[in-house]
């Protein structure tokens, strides 16, 4: 049955005399007749559902008008007004954003937001609404807070509408599929969208949502994209324009329609007249398997999807260093593991905070919050402790996996209850109090028990993932085969996605990597969907990519070819570059192309071939750097390439020094340069580049660092009698300090020449302040220094 909501409330109130200084929601108490009249107009226009005038009636927003204490009262009053005007229509309790962005993106605590929503919801229920409509939400975490608040205080159905941007995501990055998966699992009665976009832009988003949930889809577009004309906001779509889009929205899957900003009773009437002649569209079957999500990504496992790796590395068990860090509250190492694993292809990340002797709940909450700000892969919360599990799931802005639930009366029910409460999926582990089930049939029997308990907790089969239970081959020779049988039997019996930690199988055997790899491949062939594994262990990713070709998940090896097809070509490159020429030419080439290791090896080779280190340095290295400098000056290469060449040259130099015969003199030094970034300037990258390049070319560099006072520069010059002084200033605000330093040096007897440079320094300015040399960049600085010192 298709139903239509009413249209905009705010603009209607403004038309009835509401000013900017008044609280629109308070009209339920101060001007109930005006609000009731608007409701009646929409009812007359054909609205099946009226929305209460409570969009901004959250405690935080009411606080702007000093009305926070009246939250319940205002919401209840507004609900009553709508109820009285309903005349047979349903009444939806409207709930907008709380008024402050939630952590970790913003500063409002999640629980505080839940509490605020709960107050508003209690008022709405008291006033007699038929269901709740949480709308115009841009942060999935805030929607979760509202839905959890509703579930904690009422049994009223909750419709959840997010606002999407023109890129198809909320401004905080959530896509329609992800929103649908999270909110369906969390117990929404309908999901959808409103505001921000017009109907045309919302059609594809409605379709995406409809393909990801069995729930009704609700959509309330704006009357087009607004613009301002003569100081007034104008929404361009007429009632007929809006009505034209109704069939497309219904065809895409919408069953509840309505209007947001810029819509009027006339819009609703026009939409309703079209809607009356339509029937709900048939919904396509949902993709199978289990959907897991982060804030911004949905990952499906099972049901014909290619295998998805669950990264196992965020786990302090048996890792002293990680345990120590976590005890200190330092999350750097687990963050690094999160990035490394997702780079290595992990689709999901297991998060285990099992450090003995610490508050695991607090740590889990923090880890989940911080890691979810860093990676897009959904998490599996790895714990058997109900409180730690709840801390992880409650604050996770997505749909997580619980790792894992076995059959232990009391605990099983508690873990499943928590999973259901937060809309999580669950790994069922076939362990029971009667002992370790050895055969596949025994494991299936335990899973049946857990499945029944999951159903009793309100979970469905699309929430369940099965663990095949890996035992060690060394202690039970039949164990690995039993796992393979279990995978097959699971598939035949249940058809749910399967998972397991693989590496246990090789415990106690040598070359565990071989056993694990073999087991891994055989398990995939027998239906394993989501191995829990170290994704960057040697060959793990490569074997999976290869297995996807063999098992048909990567047809004709298209993805495999893209990934591995180019590697051979790249590896061949250095060989081609090194072909031909004598060792000095090759060394020069290696420096020019910035090949550090090769340059070092060739320098060694050149020494062994009998070349004098000083010849190598001048004929090969300095020459190569000179050419790189020329190329840079001509715009044929870029600063990173100059620095790579400098690194290669440095490596070659080091090698020459180490291989210098005892009687050979040290390299001839060109001269000494004092370098400084001037007082007040804290940016020293440019000066550091100049220092590195000068050192490479045989200068002794006395680097005074950054933010160096004129007196300190003068003192260093007096002490070390350099051949040249280099000064750097990055910003206009520090140019006076450069001028002062140059003036100070000018006063000194026998002062060396001064070279200046930096982003804002120009040749004219250099001349004006009396500097001897102006270098536009690091390469020029080296050239000028060499010229000045006659080398």
């Amino acid at each position, binding site marked *: 049955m298709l139903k239509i909501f009413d249209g905009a409330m705010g603009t209607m109130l403004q038309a009835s005399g509401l000013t900017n200084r008044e609280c629109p929601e308070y009209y339920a108490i101060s001007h109930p007749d005006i609000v009731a009249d608007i409701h009646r107009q929409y009812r007359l226009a054909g609205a099946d559902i009226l929305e209460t005038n409570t969009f901004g009636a959250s405690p935080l927003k009411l606080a702007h008008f000093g009305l926070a204490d009246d939250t319940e009262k205002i919401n209840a009053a507004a609900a009553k007004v709508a109820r009285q005007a309903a005349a047979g229509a349903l009444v939806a309790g409207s709930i907008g954003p709380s008024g402050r962005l939630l952590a970790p993106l913003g500063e409002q605590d999640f629980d505080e937001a839940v509490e605020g929503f709960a107050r508003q919801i209690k008022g709405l229920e008291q006033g007699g609404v038929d269901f709740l409509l949480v709308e115009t939400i841009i942060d999935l975490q805030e929607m979760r807070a509202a839905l959890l608040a509703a579930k904690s205080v009422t049994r009223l159905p909750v419709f959840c509408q997010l606002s999407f941007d023109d890129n198809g995501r909320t401004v905080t990055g959530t896509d329609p599929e992800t929103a649908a998966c999270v909110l369906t699992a969390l117990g929404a009665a309908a999901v959808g969208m409103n505001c921000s976009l017009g109907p045309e832009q919302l059609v594809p988003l409605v379709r995406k949502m409809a393909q990801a949930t069995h729930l009704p889809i609700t959509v309330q577009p704006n009357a087009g994209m607004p613009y*301002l004309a003569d100081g007034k906001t104008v929404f361009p779509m007429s009632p007929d324009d809006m009505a034209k889009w109704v069939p497309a929205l219904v065809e895409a899957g919408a069953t509840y329609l309505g209007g947001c900003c810029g819509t009027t009773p006339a819009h609703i009437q026009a939409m309703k007249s079209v809607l009356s002649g339509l029937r709900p569209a048939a919904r396509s079957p949902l993709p199978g398997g289990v959907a897991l999500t982060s804030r911004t990504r949905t990952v499906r496992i099972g049901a014909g999807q290619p295998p998805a790796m669950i990264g196992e590395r965020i786990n302090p068990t048996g890792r002293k260093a990680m345990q120590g860090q976590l005890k200190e509250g330092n999350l750097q190492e687990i963050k690094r593991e999160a990035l490394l694993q997702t780079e290595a292809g992990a689709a999901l990340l297991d998060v285990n905070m099992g450090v003995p002797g610490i508050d695991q709940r607090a740590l889990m909450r923090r880890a989940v919050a911080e890691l979810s700000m860093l990676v897009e892969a959904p998490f599996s919360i790895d714990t058997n402790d109900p409180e730690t599990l709840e801390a992880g799931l409650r604050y996770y802005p997505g749909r997580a996996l619980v790792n894992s639930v076995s059959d232990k009366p009391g605990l099983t029910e508690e873990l499943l209850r928590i999973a259901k409460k937060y809309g999580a999926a669950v790994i069922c582990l076939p362990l029971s109090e009667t002992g370790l089930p050895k055969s596949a049939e025994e494991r299936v029997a335990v899973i049946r028990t857990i499945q029944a308990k999951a159903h009793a907790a309100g979970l469905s089969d699309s929430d369940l993932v099965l663990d095949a239970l890996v035992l060690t081959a060394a202690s039970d020779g039949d164990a690995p085969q039993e796992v393979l049988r279990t995978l097959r039997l699971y598939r035949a019996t249940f058809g749910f996605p399967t998972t397991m930690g693989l590496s246990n199988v090789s415990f106690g055997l040598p070359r565990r990597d071989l056993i694990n790899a073999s087991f891994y491949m055989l398990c995939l062939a027998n239906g394993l969907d989501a191995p829990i594994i170290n994704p960057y262990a040697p060959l793990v990713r490569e074997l999976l990519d290869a297995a996807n070709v063999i098992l048909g998940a990567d047809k004709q090896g298209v993805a495999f070819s893209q990934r591995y097809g180019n590697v051979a070509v790249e590896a061949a490159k250095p060989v081609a570059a090194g072909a031909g020429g004598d060792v000095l030419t090759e060394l020069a080439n290696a420096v020019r192309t910035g090949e550090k290791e090769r340059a070092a090896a060739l320098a060694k080779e050149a020494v062994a071939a009998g070349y004098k280190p000083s010849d190598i340095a001048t004929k090969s290295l300095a020459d190569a750097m000179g050419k790189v400098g020329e190329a840079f000056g001509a715009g044929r290469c870029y600063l990173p390439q100059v620095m790579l060449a400098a690194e290669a040259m440095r490596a070659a130099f080091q090698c020459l020094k180490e291989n210098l015969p005892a009687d050979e003199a040290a390299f001839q030094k060109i001269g000494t340069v004092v370098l400084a970034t001037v007082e007040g300037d804290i940016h020293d990258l440019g000066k550091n580049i100049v220092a590195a390049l000068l050192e490479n070319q045989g200068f002794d560099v006395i680097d005074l660092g950054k933010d160096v006072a004129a007196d300190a520069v003068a003192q260093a010059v007096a002490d070390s009698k350099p051949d040249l002084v280099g000064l750097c200033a990055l910003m206009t605000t520090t140019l006076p300090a450069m001028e002062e330093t140059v003036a100070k040096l000018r006063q000194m007897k026998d002062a060396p020449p001064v070279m200046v440079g930096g982003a804002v320094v120009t040749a004219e300015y250099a001349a004006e302040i009396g500097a001897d040399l102006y270098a536009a960049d690091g390469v020029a600085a080296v050239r000028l220094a060499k010229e000045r010192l006659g080398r």
Partner: protein
Amino acid sequence: MRYFPRLTAIDEQEAVRYAGAPDKSVYAPAVVAAVCREVLLLIEPAACWEEYGYRADEGLVLSEIAYALPSCDVARHLAGAERVAVLAVTVGEAVESFSRRLFAEGRYSEALLAEGAASAAVEQAADQFCAHLEQRYRKQGLALTSRYSPGYGDWQLAEQPAVLALAKGDSIGISLTSSLMLTPKKSITAIAGWRQAQGAAPRGSNCAACNKLDCTMRKG
């Protein structure tokens, strides 16, 4: 008000560009991945902003003590705006020691890239933040201009203290040195205005707004 941008990746192309090369292939892909990963781990993105009324005809920001924009370029940039957001964004200080360490180890090109990655990160954080601010008045038909910072055009760096104070940048740990440099170094302050959506320039490259045409970092 504070906002904490969520960065799940550093734009590698931009990191390399800020390091001084137009083309990512200058660095080995593994080096780019490793340096950007490390920078991503070390940054602590944070943003803050304050909203003020704005009198476009006079270039006046209606803060408690009104602030008159002394620059023609920024006033032109904000033409037609009714409100402005004065904002500050940083990625924190921890990342600075990383590039320093790389330089000290003779890994110059990686140090350069680390600096570039941190610059890319602060820009990404600011872009994300502005996308968030943009939403604020969309319902009323207002769009946000691109952001404009002291140092762009004829808006002098000398205005940095005023702008930082208007943004309340101290709430996210940004301060100024005596020579008016922001610390942490990878920080920015800016102003953006809300004005009529129709005809307003879309958000995009800030370079288009700046008249320093010889800037080596200029896009497009």
